[in-house]
């Protein structure tokens, strides 16, 4: 079950064996599965083990940290330091080395912690990871996976809260996926690691402790396929990463008032599944795009532009965007909460759009 399942509603309700699990556990578990599947896969990052060079009583390498949000917890003790490689704080050097390793026959997975830190390695990402295949005339490939945490909501303030995916999705040569729950992170992370192109996996901090149904079996979700999270006929809500859940919650709320919203979860930001939201808009004739990233030249802008070009004749109302403001992310909880598009904002905008 790959795309099929991806196109299914939310986790629960498959007739396949599985269980409730958190996004965090599922992410860690999927890394483990892929490490077992393919000996060429290894992980690099700062404190993905912790206590590097030190060993416990049984002589096993220390597992003192396990990566931010415990993404890699426990892996070093089972896979060793060559495959779970702690690094100094050298994002450019690490990512550059990962690209070099990918170009020469391995499949590196790099934990860059927070998307804000991708900026330190941005040249390696844009100039080498994204462009090598093209500028060398297709003679090579870069099977590299990068993951980090994105978004506001945890009081990390301006320098630890970037969403950053709009910038990444703009770049030819990169693929960008944004899981929205435990079910999708399993399928997308596995697909990313098995993909022969550089893929970036966006993990919103607010998703990491959420839980949902996860099938036991191994599966991938096709990169480039979005899903319909909820069927509806009155209006289309388009979400990505955390905002897909915001859209779903808003839709459930509005259902109580008889507003039947369809919810689209993009899942992949590059390649972008245009069909999944175009088909929906052609049915509902109205759309609200919800994106936590700052508005200018954002994913919300892109989705709006595609609709304005390819579904124009089906539109009965202006295309609405609900996004973060054109500001950095503030520290104070109240301000930070106001930064993030929430259910109230989505409902308010949608009702206005429907003239209610």
């Amino acid at each position: 079950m790959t795309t099929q399942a991806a196109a299914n509603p939310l986790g629960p309700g498959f007739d396949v064996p599985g269980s409730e699990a958190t996004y965090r556990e599922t992410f860690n578990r999927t890394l483990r599965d892929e490490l077992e599947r393919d000996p060429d896969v290894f992980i690099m990052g700062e404190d993905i083990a912790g206590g590097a060079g030190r060993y416990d009583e049984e002589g096993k390498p220390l597992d003192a940290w396990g990566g931010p949000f415990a993404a890699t917890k426990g892996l070093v003790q089972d896979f060793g330091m060559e495959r779970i490689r702690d690094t100094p704080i050298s994002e450019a050097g690490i990512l550059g080395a990962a690209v070099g390793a990918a170009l020469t026959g391995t499949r590196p997975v790099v934990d860059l912690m927070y998307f804000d830190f991708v900026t330190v390695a941005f040249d390696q990402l844009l100039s080498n990871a994204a462009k090598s295949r093209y500028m060398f005339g297709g003679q090579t490939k870069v099977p590299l996976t990068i993951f980090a945490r994105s978004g506001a909501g945890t009081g990390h303030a301006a320098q630890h809260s970037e969403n950053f995916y709009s910038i990444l999705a703009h770049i030819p040569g990169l693929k960008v996926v944004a899981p929205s729950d435990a079910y999708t992170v399993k399928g997308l992370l596995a697909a990313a690691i098995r993909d022969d192109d550089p893929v970036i996996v966006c993990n919103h901090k607010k998703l990491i402790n959420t839980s949902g149904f996860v099938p036991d079996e191994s599966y991938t979700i096709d990169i480039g396929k979005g899903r319909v999270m909820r069927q509806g006929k009155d209006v289309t809500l388009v979400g990505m990463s955390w905002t897909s859940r915001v859209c779903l919650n808003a839709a459930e709320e509005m259902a109580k008032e008889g507003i039947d919203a369809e919810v689209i979860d993009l899942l992949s930001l590059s390649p972008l599944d245009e069909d999944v939201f175009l088909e929906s808009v052609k049915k509902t004739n109205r759309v609200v795009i919800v994106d936590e990233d700052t508005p200018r030249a954002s994913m919300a802008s892109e989705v709006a532009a595609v609709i304005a070009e390819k579904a124009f004749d089906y539109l009965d109302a202006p295309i609405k965007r609900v996004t973060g403001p054109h500001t950095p992310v503030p520290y104070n909880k109240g301000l930070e909460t106001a930064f993030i598009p929430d259910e109230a904002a989505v409902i308010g905008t949608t009702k206005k759009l429907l003239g209610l």
Partner: protein
Amino acid sequence: MDISSEKLSWLYETMVRIRRFEETMLEQTFKGKSMGVTHSSDGQEAGPTGICAHLTEKDWIASTHRGHGHCIAKGLDSKAMMAEIFGRVTGQCKGKGGSMHIADFSKGMLGANAIVGASIPLAVGAALTAKYKGTDSVGVAFFGDGATGQGVLHESMNLASIWKLPVIFACENNHYAEATPVEYAVSVSDIADRAASYSIPGVVVDGMDVFAVYDAAGEAIARARRGEGPTLLELKTYRYHGHFHADVPEKYRSKEEEDSWHARDPLTSFEKRVLDQELMTEEQLAAIRSAIDKEIMAAVEFAEESPMPPLEELYTDVYVSYSNPVQGLR
């Protein structure tokens, strides 16, 4: 010892203020009063204190995620600092920056910075301003052992050297970057030795001894003010607590190691020394401690009672002027 008695009590007062601030800040974090993660610098008091003892408000410092000690040593107000951590509008940054972004430009404090290594070139730029304007101000870049992994440090030291800029590169080697031991991540035993790559002086300093720091920093800063260029100081020190409030350091370092550093505690060794040499009395020391206790308690009260920033603050301070602000599209 050629330190005035005023300076001597300033050194003690400053170290005690840092210690109490950090301990209290941690307590308050565990009480849920901080709106984000906090990084305590207790154990490392001697570094910022011994260095900033030579600076005025005309000098600039650039700091890190572990910046409270730098702030206090540079003369920032503990009330405004605590209020910032509490996310209040009375905070140093109106509650918009938090623990990792405390700054006070009126005091020459260019800000704590949450991107490891990113604040280092800011101090170089401050020194460039000093040279450009012909003043005798200096810039101090505080950074940790882990930050030496960042290329921008290399670039900054090279720039400061070829331009003979008045910069002090103050590496606080507390032996860990998060849970990563310095001996794993850094390919040289004394970071100070890397100064040779830039033809500048590099000095290993006992970062637990404020007098050692005071002397080494005094020389480096005088050299910088004389226009003779930058110096790299490596302060060997230790953070008593975890990397951040919730970190459990026992997972990656031994009790023995911790004890050996506590045995060299900068405050107690200061006390012992000034009492042995009869430079200060137990009464004087006690008076300073209780005054600081009151001050820090008052800072907590102040923070507690301060209002939150109004929602409009979300949209202000992005630009000095902007013709077409976008307050989110709703």
